[in-house]
């Protein structure tokens, strides 16, 4: 296996009072060493559910998960979906690490930073207390926290938001993981701080040759750091490809809509934004056909009624660039590329 992480046909369903929530529906993603793979999509599109699946954090008793999530650890690889919990635990934090969106609440308020870091090491290296402490200080300075010895003895609430996210990153890196999952790592931060953190992630990746699965809804962030991108809509991947493919020749109408609707610095301010009409669907009440169909302006280009009645497949002429749409790809390619160019000027 050349990839560090391979998600295949992942489906996650939550039974709720109102019915089954199909939060993730047939998602396949892979991450190779040194690569940054991004998942973008609107709120509720299933990004977090996907990422939590990767470290097996869903409650297995109530959540229905199918498909496979292969994680590579040196020579062996483990399927998180079916592996026993103990085994998964030995992978968490060591092979796959995760940092979360909200650095304010993701650190335990009652423990000192240093001990929280050391604990992450100790889980996988039982008994090696001294090493753990040393590693903790090392990691703190690596993520750019000044005076690590002093700061390690402080509590999370004594840290600012950006600092905390650095601590979270340090904690995730305590065991030199192969894959880092970053679920909206900068959403809660200010732009200037966001820039610091993104830079940090980039530098670390270069040094450690990690695979990063970056989850975000901010297209700007994606453009800045991702190598490959998966666009999610209503639990499904609607388009995947290299950053340039996605940003300069999007094939899915949703991706196009998204790109057109963001205001950009430098674009003419007086013009109206091209909003996508309507609302994202409820996951319990998905249309039978294409989930985006109710908001799509290109339905007329597809075969009659296919958008409403048939669910499109994730297809593409090239292996690296695929999308879900009933409109023939040739038609879309030119049309969408032109539109995106128009919007950019």
């Amino acid at each position, binding site marked *: 296996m050349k990839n560090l992480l391979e998600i295949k046909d992942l489906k996650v369903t939550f039974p709720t009072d109102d019915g089954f929530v199909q939060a993730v529906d047939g998602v396949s993603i892979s991450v190779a060493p040194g690569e940054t793979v991004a998942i973008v999509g609107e709120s509720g599109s299933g990004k977090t559910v996907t990422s939590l699946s990767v*470290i097996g*954090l869903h409650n297995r008793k109530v959540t229905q998960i199918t498909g496979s999530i292969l994680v590579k650890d040196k020579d062996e690889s483990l399927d998180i979906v079916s592996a026993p919990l103990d085994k998964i*635990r*030995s*992978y*968490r*934090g*060591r092979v796959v*690490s*995760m940092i*979360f969106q*909200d650095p304010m*609440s*993701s*650190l*335990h*308020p*009652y*423990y000192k930073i240093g001990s929280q870091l050391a*604990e*992450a090491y100790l*889980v*996988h290296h039982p008994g090696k207390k001294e090493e753990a402490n040393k590693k903790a200080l090392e990691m703190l300075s690596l993520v750019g926290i000044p005076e690590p010895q002093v700061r390690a003895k402080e*509590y999370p*609430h*004594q840290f600012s938001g950006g600092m905390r996210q650095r601590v*979270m990153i340090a*904690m995730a890196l305590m065991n030199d993981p192969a894959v880092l999952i970053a679920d909206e790592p900068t959403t809660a931060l200010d732009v200037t701080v966001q820039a610091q953190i993104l830079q940090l992630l980039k530098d670390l990746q270069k040094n450690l040759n990690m695979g990063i699965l970056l989850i975000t809804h901010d297209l700007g962030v994606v453009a800045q750091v991702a190598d490959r991108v998966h666009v999610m809509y209503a639990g499904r991947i609607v388009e995947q490809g290299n950053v340039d493919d996605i940003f300069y020749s999007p094939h899915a109408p949703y991706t196009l809509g998204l790109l057109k609707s963001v205001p950009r610095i430098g674009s003419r301010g007086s013009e109206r934004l091209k909003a996508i009409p309507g609302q994202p669907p409820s996951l319990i009440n998905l249309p039978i056909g294409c989930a985006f169909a109710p908001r799509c302006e290109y339905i007329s280009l597809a075969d009659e009624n296919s958008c409403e009645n048939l669910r499109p497949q994730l297809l593409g002429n090239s292996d690296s660039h695929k999308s879900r749409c009933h409109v023939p790809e040739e038609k879309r390619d030119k049309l969408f590329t032109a539109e995106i160019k128009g919007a950019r000027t």
Partner: protein
Amino acid sequence: MPRFILRRAYFATLTILLVSIVVYGVFSILPFDPAALTCGQKCTPAIVEANRVKLGFDKPLWQQYWLFLSGIFLGRTYGAGSAEFTCPAPSFGYSFNENMCVTDMLAEALPVTINLAIGAFVIWITVGVGLGLLAAKFRGRYPDTISSVFVLLGTSLPTFVTGLFFLIYVTIKWKIVPLSLEGFTPITESPVKYLQYFILPWLTLAILYAAFYTRFTRATVLETLGEDYIRTARAKGLSERVVLLKHTMRAALAPITTSAGLDIAGLIGGAIITESIFNLAGLGRMTLQAVYEFDLSVVVATTILAATVVITMNLIVDIAYGYLDPRVRMK
């Protein structure tokens, strides 16, 4: 930090003083003539008047209170002539029903109540927190169901029903726990007698509180389990046991300690029912008896004492909270 403690201690003292004024005032303006009540069957106005002078009720209210207050620090003398006697400091007055200085009565009753409260506390905390943890861990499954049945029964059964049940069935009918006739024996003297004396009262008290703490622990733990930092702990690869017992319990510790501290303080004056059912010569029973007999000096003293314990415990809990929660500590 010391400044904070000092300030709180100052306010606590002030509150105690205020409470004592209110309590003393409330009881003193009541339509009772303690002088007449201590006067016996064949009573003449002259006797009542003499009693009044002896008890100090002939003085204006504020002087009475002042005598009471200064008695706490200086001791107080009652009676006249050769029948004069002193209740040495700290004196909380003199009970004419019991012919004892209230302080001596307190000294007799307090150890019983304290032992009762602490023993019950140990049981309820262990059972309550343990069950609460189990219920949270196995949420929705049978340990949870069992614990919620326990919670419902525990909170719905009045103490006197459980207490009577224990006394009549467990002790007398089934003879599981032998009846203790000798009264309070310190554990240092005879652990067996000590246990015999306290075990059922402990259980009676503990059931109610254990039920409450089960519910409380369960809710707190469940809430904590939903916190982001618990997700972080899991993402580190920690086992569920460590997540639950270390990370979750650490966060639940502060609220549980707070409410446990206040509850145990409440028990000092609140174990009335248990004490009267099991005939424990503690503070509660003593007060109840004093209430029946309008023995006001005892009632005033125990009420103020109980309030003092509550206030002091409040203070301790506040300070402890500061130590338990680093976020508060730093402020």
